[in-house]
């Protein structure tokens, strides 16, 4: 009999308990979650754009709303998600090319380091839009 009970599947002695999970497992779970988030986002993005097919004014006012600091911040979260997915995807593709399989942990952290640099650069680019008030023009 296979045990289907959550306590036994995800308990302290299971491989899913956070302290038992290793680099590759975290990377994979992150890749899955960000991937699913991005699929949902694509459909949201399309439905936002489709407001333009109703009226051009509707599109402009939507763009005005989305240029609020809060929305820019949310956009930035999206950028982080994309960068993680891309950098981890680069890691997976390295493995597919047969590169660095034996040093998978190093490859993961190297990719994450590049991702962190990209995120910092992105933050610098959007800093003004989030934290500097637009002056109400």
């Amino acid at each position, binding site marked *: 009999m296979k045990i289907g009970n959550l306590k036994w599947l995800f308990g302290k002695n299971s491989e899913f308990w956070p302290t038992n999970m290793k680099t590759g497992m975290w990377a994979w779970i992150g890749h*899955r979650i960000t*991937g699913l988030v991005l699929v949902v986002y*694509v459909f949201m993005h399309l439905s936002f754009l489709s407001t*333009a097919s109703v009226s051009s*004014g509707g599109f402009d006012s939507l*763009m005005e709303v989305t240029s609020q600091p809060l929305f820019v911040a949310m956009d930035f979260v999206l950028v982080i998600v994309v960068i993680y997915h891309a950098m981890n995807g680069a890691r997976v593709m390295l493995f597919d090319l047969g590169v660095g399989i034996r040093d998978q942990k190093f490859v993961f952290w190297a990719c994450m380091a590049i991702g962190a640099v990209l995120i910092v650069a992105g933050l610098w680019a959007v800093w003004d*839009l989030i934290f500097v008030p637009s002056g109400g*023009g």
Partner: protein
Amino acid sequence: MPERQRIATTKVAGTWAWFLQRLSAVLLVVLLGIHLYVSHFMDLDSHVADEALITFEDVTVRLDQLLYIVVDYSMLAMVLFHGLNGFRTVMFDFDMFIRRKKTVDAGLWVLGIATMLWGIVILFPFITGG
């Protein structure tokens, strides 16, 4: 035991799905870079937030050029392929979906093509200028 005989009964190669997933990933990174640059940085010649605002007109002017139309549509196609193929990979990790492989594939194709058509229609107002 009937349950055991089901192992590896799905004799369908996924090599193309696997390879095209990687190919579309690389293309996406390039296209996404262009997309972000075009829509957020190209007209951003000052740091005042107002002027960074994208308006309907901005987009219309941009989409007068065939290049931008091609970039936008190919981006959409790549995103849909990569996203739905990735979702297919996630689904096939579970018994209930991989044993209904044909249904899953058909559903995703329908969803993908319908979304692509929808996306093509969405840009019409911009291309024709309202």
